[in-house]
């Protein structure tokens, strides 16, 4: 029964995420059209882009919620310690039935790098003796310093591919060894 419920929730979130990704693709097309015609995007279009991206990010996070079995986190970490902000609030924090003790971040970005938020996430995971999990979109790319930190800390990366989550950590880390 619980499994049926979980499957239904997963399916609904997947549809929502896919819809959001579809909106993003439309927006990318609009942007290319603007670029081709050397037109500037209108305020309406900019607001549409923000909404589409936010929607996609929310949907990715929602799908990761189902995977982790954790609700959205409300606990602050690194108060008075975080880089450039008063505190951090990771997307996921606590004991996940799937993964154990985790600190998780869902990131719907084209490229991830070792910027302030992620570096703080690594620090918080170390402080809390948790493993950092990154839940990312299918096309998300990683910088080499970030891959190196993932390598050294045991952080795991899950990618949303073809309507399911896939652990791509080892596959990603092979890039650190490859000259391609």
């Amino acid at each position, binding site marked *: 029964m619980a499994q049926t419920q979980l499957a239904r929730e997963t399916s609904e979130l997947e549809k929502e995420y896919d819809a959001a990704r579809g909106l993003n693709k439309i927006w990318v097309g609009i942007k290319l059209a603007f670029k081709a015609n050397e037109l500037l995007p209108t305020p309406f279009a900019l607001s549409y882009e923000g909404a589409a991206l936010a929607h996609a990010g929310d949907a990715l996070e929602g799908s990761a919620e189902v995977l982790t079995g954790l609700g959205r986190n409300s606990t602050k970490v690194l108060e*008075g310690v975080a880089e450039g902000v008063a505190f951090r609030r990771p997307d996921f924090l*606590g004991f996940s039935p799937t993964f154990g003790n985790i600190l998780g971040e869902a990131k719907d970005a084209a490229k991830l*790098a*070792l910027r302030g938020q992620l570096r703080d996430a690594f620090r918080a995971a170390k*402080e809390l003796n948790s493993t950092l999990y990154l839940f990312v979109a299918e096309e998300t790319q990683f910088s080499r310093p970030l891959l190196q930190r993932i390598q050294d*800390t045991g952080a795991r990366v899950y990618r949303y591919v073809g309507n399911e989550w896939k652990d791509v950590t080892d596959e990603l880390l092979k890039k650190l*060894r490859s000259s391609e």
Partner: protein
Amino acid sequence: MKAKAKKHFINIQVWTTHFLGTAERGQALLTLLESIDGGRWAPERWNTIEPIRKPYSRDSAGEIIKCWIEDRPPGSGEVYNDLMFRRTKPRALILVHALRLGTGGLNSIWMELEAQSFLTGDGSDRLKAILQGFVSWSDGVYGSVYYSGQAHKRTVQMTPLQRLDQAYWLNFFGQPYLDMFGRERILRAPCHAVVEIPGHGLVLQAAPRFDSPEITESDKLLIALEEYLGPDAFAGRGYPKVPCRVPSFDLWETIPPSPRVYSQ
């Protein structure tokens, strides 16, 4: 071989039980990076996080050191800082990590360089000198030089606190490993040469060059080296389910004076 090596890169990594986030070590690092290998890898850009865009010059030393030694919260002695440097023509990326937090851990320096710059006859000696420079600067306990064209590639996470990931063309073993493997055993290892870094440890050189055929065409030499030193120390047999044999590391420098209690 030269045409193939143009695309390849070299990773040099050194781990230390010492806390690197001090002003003295920071100043020494900048001097080292500006002078190592005849100064050809002197940084052009730096930052504490990505993107690495701040112009690097001697005038930036003050700001760099300030970032490098900063503890957060102020006065806590807790440090989790990075310095990143990069340059182009020749291309280099450098990541240095200072950690004094929680139960402690290893500090490290990692450098990625284009292999093309080391194809000359003196290339191998220059790489050995860079490794030696990093070991001396950090008082390292373990180090390695990886060539992306080497045949033996094993991808495993974590640090030498948990495992040695694999044998490399150059392997530096500091005192904890001299104690664990035995100094005499390392000196008799089946490899091209073993060189001492006085006061620090031994560098085991598997083959004459990083791009020697024994390194690029087969994994036999490096696996034989792992077997000789003790396969239970390397992450080849069932790790992480089967833990590796690791030396005893003294991490006191990387533990804050008054550790905070963390909870979720």
